[in-house]
């Protein structure tokens, strides 16, 4: 498990990027934490820089939207889903498990 940050450092509506072999983006959606691969499957945008709307994040570059729960992409130009990761909250700290919980196939 990779420690991300204290829960208080990631308020609702915010996102942060965690450096790992493949960087991971962690989001707080109204108190629920989600983690997906940070790099957009279209080009090399960081999804943590994107636009969070409900449970989807819009890529900051070309506006493909990814579902944080499933990794599924809703529209072009990206065509491939992102991987999702399990988030664990323990003693006020947010952690992600690097082994993906799904390969993004929803």
């Amino acid at each position, binding site marked *: 498990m990779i420690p991300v940050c204290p829960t208080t450092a990631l308020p609702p509506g915010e996102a942060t990027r965690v450096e790992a072999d493949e960087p991971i983006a962690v989001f707080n959606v109204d108190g629920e934490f989600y983690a997906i691969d940070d790099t957009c499957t279209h080009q090399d*945008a960081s999804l*943590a*820089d994107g636009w969070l709307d409900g449970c989807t994040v*819009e890529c*900051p570059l070309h*506006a493909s939207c990814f579902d944080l729960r499933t990794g599924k992409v809703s*529209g*072009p*130009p990206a065509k491939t889903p992102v991987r999702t990761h399990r988030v664990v909250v323990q003693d006020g700290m947010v952690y992600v498990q690097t082994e993906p919980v799904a390969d993004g196939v929803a």
Partner: protein
Amino acid sequence: MSPTVAVVGASLAGLSAARALREQSYDGRIVVLGDEPHAPYDRPPLSKGFLAGTTSLDDITLTAPDDEDLALEWRLHTTAVGLDRVSRSVLLDDGTELQADGVVLATGARARRLPGAEGLDGVHVLRSLDDAISLRADLVAAGRLVVIGAGFIGAEVASTARGLGLEVTVVESQPVPLAAPLGTDMGAVCAELHADHGTRLLTGTGVAGLVGTTRVEAVELTDGTRLPADVVVVGIGAIPNTEWLAHSGVALGNGVLTDACGATNTPGVVAVGDCAAAWSAVAERHVRIEHWTSALEQPATAVATLLGTGGPAPTPVPYFWSDQYGARIQFAGSRQEGDVARVVEGSCADRSFLVLYERDGHPVAVLGMNQPRLFTRWRRQLRSAAPTPR
């Protein structure tokens, strides 16, 4: 017979319209007509990764496996040559016609060509996949490129060609490139990227003509200068593909005239994407927007109009981007002459900044260079600040 919607145009706007029809529960027949032989593909990479050879055709294909479920009838390599507004029939170049209950016009635009350049090898425009394939073949064998027009396409081609090791000169007739979309100050800042990366930029200079008998050899400028060239790319804008509608009775201007929801003057006919000039309440005129994001977003509204389920007119915040020399340029909003541009983050000298355009003290547009995170926040802010539709 089940009802039919004909989507005329098989690029992003046409594909998005077909998808939107299904999303909005239309279960009749959908026929998508495309004049190119290719299945829908994404155009922005044509001047960037695809031209550089780092992005494949497979990468830029727009259709996804899920699209199979949409049961679309594709008729590619088929050009629409006319529209009969009474019977709502689309006349095709093979002499047949397609009778439809609804028609989505999404025929896009084509590159404006330089008069007198016809038939000269080595002279290119860049709009279609075939354009990109033939330009790439020429670029990899060339040493010197002259780009006519320092707009976004011209700048991106120049940037890609520099990456391929060519010697590049860009010629722009206006004193400052990109002044229309970005304003003079910011246009000048973005144009500095050329010099940063060893591209020569000549501004305020017209082109007198091209030199060469079978193949282009040089570009001659109005001041008499001759720029030797192995390849010339002409990037001087686009013309909407609406000539085929000339006798249809569909109202035309600089594109197919529509209201803010995509409706034309003809019942059962809507228009979207680069061929459409939609009414803008903000600008108080019809505006033809050639942005990728408009081609993606407009169709949902136009399709709702076609199906008779449309709601209030949307107030989109136009958004476009350009990637040049590794710099990410993003712009959102509507800039007018007189708006005041102010750097709110970073600095132009560092090629990393965010600029806000203000009118009467209110932000109306935002420009970012290498600031995707902050840019996205401002873009969102502009969206939520957009006047609510009446």
